[in-house]
């Protein structure tokens, strides 16, 4: 299985290379990528430097062009596709049918990976994209149980990539409009969920309050860890019950599932976190490299090392991890 690591900057690319990534995915610093955050990502000059670094080490570069094109601005998405091909990226990660159409038509030899934002969760959907846009690989949304991943793998011979570690999107990706409902901006339209410019923190008599576009997402007492107000991870009320109505602040960690994922013929395990620091990329890449190598050497006796879990827990949201939808009890 390929270890596919995130990078939002050149130092993060270097960290991923140094610690054993097989492939690295990045995006341009424009609205064509679903991690469009201020101060992150790659301009024309930097993306060429990243490509050179990755090529020199014979590793693979994937470029995410995975938002949905705004009418009248399609040239920005075309530009990103042209640029990715021009600098010799191994794969283009695309979600929008318009962008898929452009890339498949103009560059029939390009390797297209269907972004998780395209939300293909079943064989018929995979066939749709394959028959129409000549995709090579599908990145599966984080809504399938392990059993369902295995079933899908048996049904199709296309390459499958799964999310292995990182922030946990609990909704079918690409089909979640919660962020635009509260702020007007969503991953699909501007490449950001719960955008930072709408976030406000305030210490009050009731505790530390986090708000998104003035909506109270959570309120923390002194002994609680405050987390970024991603709107699906707030504490809300249903009748009189106050709880994390949708999900707790937590990260996905499937390092325990490596043998199962390998048996399901998964081509690539993806680490989420292009918005995270080079130190995060270094730690996750190093631990996952160790885990995959350990599995490779002795598949029968593979066990996740407790020290990995501790280290990964420390860099996780809310300092806790979950198997997410892979485990049915989570659902």
């Amino acid at each position, binding site marked *: 299985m390929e270890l596919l690591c995130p990078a939002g900057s050149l130092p993060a690319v270097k960290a991923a290379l140094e610690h054993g990534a097989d492939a690295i995915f990045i995006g341009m610093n424009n609205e064509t990528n679903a991690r469009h955050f201020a101060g992150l990502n790659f301009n024309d000059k930097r993306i060429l430097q990243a490509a050179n670094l990755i090529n020199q080490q014979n590793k693979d570069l994937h470029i995410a062009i995975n938002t949905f094109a705004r009418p009248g601005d399609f040239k920005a998405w075309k530009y990103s596709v042209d640029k990715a091909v021009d600098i010799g990226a191994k794969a283009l990660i695309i979600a929008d049918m318009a962008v898929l159409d452009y890339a498949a038509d103009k560059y029939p030899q390009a390797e297209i990976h269907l972004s998780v934002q395209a939300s293909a969760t079943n064989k018929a959907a995979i066939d749709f994209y394959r028959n129409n846009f000549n995709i090579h690989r599908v990145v599966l949304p984080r*809504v399938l149980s392990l059993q369902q991943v295995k079933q899908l793998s048996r049904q199709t011979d296309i390459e499958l990539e799964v999310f292995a570690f990182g922030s946990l999107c609990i909704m079918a990706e690409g089909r979640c409009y919660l962020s635009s409902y509260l702020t007007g901006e969503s991953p699909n339209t501007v490449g950001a969920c719960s955008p930072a410019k709408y976030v406000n923190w305030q210490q009050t008599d009731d505790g530390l309050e986090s708000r998104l576009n003035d909506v109270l997402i959570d309120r923390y007492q002194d002994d609680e860890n405050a987390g970024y107000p991603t709107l699906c991870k707030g504490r809300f009320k249903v009748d009189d019950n106050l709880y994390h109505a949708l999900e707790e602040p937590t990260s996905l960690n499937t390092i325990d599932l490596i043998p199962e994922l390998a048996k399901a013929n998964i081509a690539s395990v993806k680490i989420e976190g292009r918005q995270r620091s080079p130190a995060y990329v270094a730690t996750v890449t190093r631990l996952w490299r160790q885990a995959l190598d350990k599995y490779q050497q002795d598949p029968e006796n593979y066990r996740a090392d407790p020290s990995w879990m501790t280290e990964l827990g420390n860099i996780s949201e809310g300092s806790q991890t979950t198997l997410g939808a892979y485990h049915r009890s989570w659902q």
Partner: protein
Amino acid sequence: MKFSLGANQYYWPKATIAEFYQQAATSNADIIYLGETVCSKRRELRQKDWLNLAKELAKTNKQIVLSTMALLEAPSEVMLLQKYCANGEFIIEANDVGAIELCRQNKVEFVCGQAINAYNAPALKRLLGMGMQRWVTPVELGRDWIKQTLDELDSQNLRAKFEVEIQAYGHLPLAYSARCFTARSENKSKDECQLCCINYPRGRLVDSQEDKQLFVLNGIQTMSGDCYNLSNDIASMENLIDVIRISPQAENTFTILDDFIAREQHSEYRKLPTNHANGYWHEIAGMQTI
């Protein structure tokens, strides 16, 4: 302008569903969408019941469309979808691209549902080539976005080849998850949900700690806390929107439908009720109101 009843998003007892569609049969709706789109465990009506209901309703002069699931995870769900697409009589509302693929294989025309991410003219052009008859706009798109998209298609002489529909009333489906949030709200897992969503014919409200109505839990679906209401915006839909969709409500659906029909003829501004919003249409946050 035509008017439609969208597929019911909630889980109601069989008798309630039957009663609703009896009224729908004699209502002023031009188009009726039928079927379960949220959760395959909701089986008060099974496939043959939905098809029988469709045949019954087709005796009226209305167009009947079979709506299909938005989130397909298990092979059994895809098999059921395949049977819908091969029904041989009714067109399909596709809420997942998998349904479009199966419609193509069965040579059936389809409505591109609001859960499919068709965001721009090149995408719609491709879908037209696959048999799309109607585009239900994705919930987060506003008037300017829709207008620009349609202008672009108009310049390619493609606009007349399909209809455009928008949900103009009802809580908006905003997200789909593997997790069942209604079951979670009762401390149950999805596998042991006991179909508890049948006890919430309007879904379950989620409020912020300051009592702002944020979301509605409806099984694996999260809906907008506010009721989307474009009753003041019908005039601005002219030459853009062909079909106005009313999403079925536990109460007063047909009064609301008739009110929209009347407001198309005689537009008058009325202040929206509390917890109603129209932000998306105006290209601002969905929860806001103009």
